[in-house]
């Protein structure tokens, strides 16, 4: 069915092309319309400039980091994430995926980890992502954040969480056999709970 449509369209286009090439008649009013060509090149260019300027400004503004209250570092390994909170006390831990228990219906398959990244809500947080061995990518889709973890390079991103709860993400850059099995869980808590936890 699809092939028939494709064949019909192709035959029609080939017929038009052939008739144009074979045709020796010339419409003497259609060629050499220099003024109109000039106009319909310059006018869209100007319109596009009007679209670009606020768009570029917004792009730069979106990237700004506004006074984060803390910085967390995340390092991608094969095949787990490790997190470091070095601002006040030195907290470091690894976060491995918990294997799925088929009789525990309250846990998500392939998304749960043993250690959650606990973070305070309503606070601007800067995250620095890197990797220890191969490329990984740290992402939390519900926060709209994704940053590639490249060995030898620090990538900075920032976010603010506005609600408490658990936010999930998965490694987004193929990194070997267990690439699908290194999830990320952010546990967003109130600032008091966070201070309790980090002690």
């Amino acid at each position, binding site marked *: 069915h699809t092939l028939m449509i494709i064949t019909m369209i192709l035959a029609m286009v080939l017929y038009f092309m052939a008739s144009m090439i074979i045709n020796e008649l010339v419409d003497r009013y259609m060629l050499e319309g*220099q003024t109109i060509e000039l106009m319909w*090149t310059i006018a869209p260019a100007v319109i596009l400039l009007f679209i670009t300027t606020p768009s*570029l400004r917004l792009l730069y503004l979106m990237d700004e980091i506004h006074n984060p209250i803390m910085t967390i570092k995340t390092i991608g390994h094969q095949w787990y994430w490790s997190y470091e909170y070095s601002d006040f006390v030195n907290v470091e831990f690894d976060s491995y995926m918990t294997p799925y228990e088929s009789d525990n219906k309250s846990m998500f398959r392939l998304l749960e980890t043993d250690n959650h990244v606990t973070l305070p809500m309503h606070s601007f947080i800067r995250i620095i992502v890197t990797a220890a061995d191969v490329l990984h990518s740290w992402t939390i889709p519900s926060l709209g954040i994704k940053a590639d973890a490249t060995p030898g390079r620090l990538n900075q991103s920032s976010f603010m969480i506005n609600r408490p709860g658990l936010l999930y993400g998965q490694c987004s850059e193929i990194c070997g056999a267990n690439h699908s099995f290194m999830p990320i869980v952010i546990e967003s808590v109130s600032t008091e709970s966070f201070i309790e936890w980090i002690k």
Partner: protein
Amino acid sequence: MKGFSLASMKSHPSLIPLYVCVALGCSGAVLYTIRLAVRSPEVSWNKKSNPEPWNEYANKQHKFYSPVRDYSNIESPAPKYD
């Protein structure tokens, strides 16, 4: 074909915006590549005289457009390893 040389452009003035846009695009690409080569904070042409090229941007602005903060007044918050 007409329109490709400077003289025949007078008979095809509608090609001028095309040449302008293509020239702008090409020069933008070339100039940005040169900027990456000489001003990027990660490129070091001479490892002995410039082993850590990112230190040059501790007080300078690398971005094209920064409406939020003035980079000449603030120190980079990264730790120093001297």
